[in-house]
């Protein structure tokens, strides 16, 4: 499978490892690009560079897979309210049609900043965050006919999807998810209200083990001593898992989502930010 590439003859396209190459400086941003460490101008510059640099494109692909593996280390399920809110939101959003289905260039997408006479491929991920690309400027007549057919198909698809979305909108206009999370917790069959105290003020937990949700409420919770924070822990037997930091304030109403299946207690301690295990005596402890 031979990919159509435009920069074969261009001497400005240096390879990695050649510090004297004119574009060597742009190349060196490839790692920073993938981990999101470029500022907007650098980011735009590198994206433009990607359109013409095969080796950077390949590294971006590989590094993006690598970064996705890194993200495994920090997996956390979202609060369950997010699910219903997202489902409700997509019912009002039509998926965009495919950007560039031209069969002559199966693996490439035009890049608006690429040289005019070429359509080098670009990472589709940039497109996911920006404007859908335009169709190629110039295509052979045969491709034009194919393109025309595709455009007509796309239009028909748009009409069909439009009608479909319209029906859905009417059906589900009332389906709002504003208080989905609250409703979910409060209507959970095993939802419990547990009262406690923290720093001499009343503090309540609403807990659903089934939904893995905890709501902590308090009024006039005094701020913790400088450099320390209130931290919530889920205790299961000998193990304590951090569930998050509790912010002090006049009206505290904070959600936590944590695996509660095996939990038997909730504890709040005072910790320097982001402790891994509790290092001080519990200020509040309730059995769940």
């Amino acid at each position, binding site marked *: 499978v031979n990919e159509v590439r435009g920069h074969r003859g261009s001497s400005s396209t240096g390879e990695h490892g050649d510090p004297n190459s004119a574009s060597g400086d742009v190349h*060196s*941003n490839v*790692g*920073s690009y993938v*981990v*999101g*460490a*470029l500022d907007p101008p650098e980011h735009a510059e590198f994206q433009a560079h990607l359109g013409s640099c095969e080796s950077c494109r*390949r*590294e971006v*692909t*590989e590094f*993006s*897979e*690598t*970064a*996705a*593996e*890194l*993200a*495994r*280390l*920090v997996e*956390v*399920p*979202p*609060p369950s*309210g*997010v*699910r219903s*809110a*997202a*489902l409700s*939101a*997509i019912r009002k*959003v*039509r*998926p*965009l049609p*495919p*950007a560039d289905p031209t069969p002559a260039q*199966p*693996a490439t*997408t035009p890049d608006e900043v690429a040289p005019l006479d070429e359509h080098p491929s670009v990472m*589709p*991920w940039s*497109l*996911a*965050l920006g404007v*859908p690309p335009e169709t190629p400027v110039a295509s052979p007549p045969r491709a034009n006919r194919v393109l025309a057919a595709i455009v007509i198909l796309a239009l028909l698809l748009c009409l069909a999807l439009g009608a479909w979305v319209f029906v859905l909108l009417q059906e589900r206009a009332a389906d709002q998810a504003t208080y989905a999370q609250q409703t979910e917790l409060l209507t959970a069959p095993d939802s419990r209200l547990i009262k406690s105290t923290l720093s001499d003020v009343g503090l309540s937990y609403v807990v659903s083990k089934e939904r893995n949700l905890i709501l902590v409420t308090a009024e006039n919770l005094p701020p913790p001593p400088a450099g320390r924070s209130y931290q919530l822990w889920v205790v299961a037997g000998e193990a304590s*898992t*951090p569930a*998050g930091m509790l912010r002090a304030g006049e009206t505290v109403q*904070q*959600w*936590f989502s944590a695996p509660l299946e095996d939990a038997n207690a909730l504890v709040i301690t005072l910790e320097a*930010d*982001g402790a*891994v*295990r509790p290092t001080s005596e519990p200020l509040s402890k309730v059995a769940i």
Partner: protein
Amino acid sequence: VPSIGTSPPSAEGPEERFGPRDVWRSEQRSREAQAAWLVELVNRCARGHEDAFEVLYDATAARVHGIVLRVLRAPDLAAEVTQEVFVEIWRQAASYQSSKGSVLAWMTTVAHRRAVDRVRSTSSEVARDDRYAALNAERSRDLVWDAVQGRLDVERVRKAMDSLTPIQREAITLAYFGGYSQSQVARLLSIPLGTVKTRLRDGLIGLRDALGVAS
């Protein structure tokens, strides 16, 4: 409108590639089968199948939310951004091309980018103290480590991370998990910008090789 089937995605033909949500966690299923299953789900999202979106959400929500939460460090804001990411995935499903990488890489990229954009925007509610981050770079790494346990894949990634030099690891942790720009990372670690660039790239090469990521 065809509906999602209920049989496990590994052995069956293309018509029956959707499984119940819990099957996702089954360790028996090969990575390839999982990846192909996700591609099929995204393709169906592009055609407007909400049931496919629901399954996709359940299969990927922890990965997406985890990285968003890690970068933003604010649970309420992270929940909001996670929702935005999934709506964006739904909207852009047709732009996903399996020839350019896995679904998880695509989704993680979108999620990370959104979170970083939020952090960098002036309206961000997240107050961040650079000096604090520098002091705690090593500790936040431990937090990352300790928050996860047991699963083989996580163990593999953890080992890969351990194979890096401390400065590579710190640079990647600050940039990827901390959401800091490369010039901020340079200031935090008191090393030249050019060094940050090479450490980030070398670190990713090291991880890529340790994890056996193929293009």
